[in-house]
């Protein structure tokens, strides 16, 4: 036949630097079945190398093979060094283990935090013990989800993120824990009623958040990186998918609001606010990419708050 057969045509691949357009490398007689890992330079680890069809475009995935890419017999790829990378799992484990441990330091009132006469003493307020259980449960849940539930679409992120993220999580954990476990802590104004209500909100939202994580996991088979629209399942907590794109974030904000009401502690409220702001940004981004990717995306859904945001 006269048409070039994409299945058997050998290609030439030239690799240019994305910033300087300098020719870095030229590969000839590349078979169509060759994936991108073949084109990557062995002197740096693959996760750090980004190859793309357009210098400002999205990175191609390692599994992409030349025959499936929109290139002719000569392919031009642009190379970008992403800098030192660290795995998502490592970052998550570190950033969540910190608050778990740090909060306990304050709860047990280890020396040099409060006055010496308070060393290793225990609060007389029930709510303080309850708060410790809730906070610890929250982070243990996150650690277990990172290890056994989440399926990450990216393997790695830039190394500097771990410093930024840990400062945020560890810093806020210490700040909140300091006040909740302080000898001069003042329990909530409306007493046991307030604590019970807040605890109910917290528990419901934790269950909700977990349900969403499981639903998202089931959406994507093990080892695959496919993307699908999430839908409500038999689990009532997932029915929030009818109204929002990212109910996991909705439930997360709810949990922290519950915790703030339970402890009646301003730093907790501030942490919730900052977290809410960040999660809203993420939710809007996710919502936008769902809309771009799926023509039939449910129109009723908002990114994070039903009907509002």
């Amino acid at each position, binding site marked *: 036949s006269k048409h070039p057969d994409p299945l058997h045509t050998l290609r030439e691949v030239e690799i240019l630097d994305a910033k300087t357009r300098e020719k870095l490398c030229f590969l000839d007689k590349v078979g169509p079945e060759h994936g991108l890992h073949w084109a990557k330079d062995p002197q740096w680890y693959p996760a750090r190398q980004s190859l793309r069809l357009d210098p400002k475009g999205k990175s191609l995935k390692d599994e992409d093979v030349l025959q499936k890419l929109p290139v002719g017999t000569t392919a031009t790829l642009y190379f970008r060094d992403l800098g030192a990378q660290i795995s998502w799992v490592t970052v998550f484990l570190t950033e969540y283990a910190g608050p778990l441990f740090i909060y306990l330091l304050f709860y047990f009132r280890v020396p040099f935090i409060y006055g010496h006469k308070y060393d290793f003493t225990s609060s007389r307020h029930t709510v303080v013990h309850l708060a410790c259980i809730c906070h610890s449960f929250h982070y243990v849940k996150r650690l277990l989800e990172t290890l056994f539930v989440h399926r990450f679409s990216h393997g790695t992120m830039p190394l500097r993120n771990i410093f930024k993220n840990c400062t945020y999580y560890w810093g806020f954990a210490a700040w909140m824990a300091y*006040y*909740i476990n*302080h000898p*001069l*802590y*003042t329990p909530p*104004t409306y007493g046991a009623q307030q604590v019970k209500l807040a605890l109910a909100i917290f528990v419901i939202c934790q269950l909700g958040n977990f349900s969403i994580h499981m639903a998202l996991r089931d959406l994507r088979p093990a080892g695959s990186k496919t993307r699908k629209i999430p839908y409500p399942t038999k689990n009532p907590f997932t029915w929030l998918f009818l109204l929002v794109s990212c109910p996991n974030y909705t439930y997360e904000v709810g949990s922290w609001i519950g915790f703030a009401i339970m*402890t*009646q*502690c*301003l*730093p907790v409220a501030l942490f919730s606010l900052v977290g809410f702001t960040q999660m809203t940004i993420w939710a809007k981004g996710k919502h936008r990419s769902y809309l771009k990717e799926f023509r039939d995306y449910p129109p009723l859904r908002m990114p994070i708050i039903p009907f509002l945001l």
Partner: protein
Amino acid sequence: MAAAAATAAAKGNGGGGGRAGAGDAVRGPGRRPDDLPREAHPGRPGSDGERRQPRWLVIAVGLVRAYLAKGSYHSLYYSIEKPLKFFQTGALLEILHCAIGIVPSSVVLTSFQVMSRVFLIWAVTHSVKEVQSEDSVLLFVIAWTITEIIRYSFYTFSLLNHLPYLIKWARYTLFIVLYPMGVSGELLTIYAALPFVRQAGLYSISLPNKYNFSFDYHAFLILIMISYIPIFPQLYFHMIHQRRKILSHTEEHKKFE
């Protein structure tokens, strides 16, 4: 070119308002601060250079006349207090201008500068009456005044597409002295305010309280002072880098003329 001139003309009203204010405001230290007139149209649109340049001249002239009249500069603060507060707070608008793109500076750097100035004026100098007669206040006000007069001249002339090399040179050279001068004035003022803040427990809240929160303004001010250590060199060397880039670029252009 026509569009730029039209824009500049349309926005020129703001400059006029400023000048009217200048004549009234500068009556010397005999006037109590309450007598100073207020700018009637704070929200009037105007290009940064044209609107704001007169206000810094207001402050500059105020300073000079007060000094000449009183023979000393200790009551200076009172003469310039109202315009300084008004105009520098109005500078918050500049952050907006950067954000919407009518001024080419970075939003982050401008926010930083405006916030730090607003903080110095309201949270330190205004709040702690005892530092108002300090020399360090004079130091930073002078530094800011000269810097802003040059900076807005720069923006004005740039908008009119007729930037004299002298203004560009001044903008990218005088900072070498003015930045450290301003920073010294600011740091000394904050340092002077510390004992009064501690004594009065200013802006501080302690445990126990209903919202389980505490804030020590004294410690906060010390933290602010410490933050100058990493931040100031970055800003300073950024300007030096800009200077090299922009002034050498002009040199090359001149060679080809």
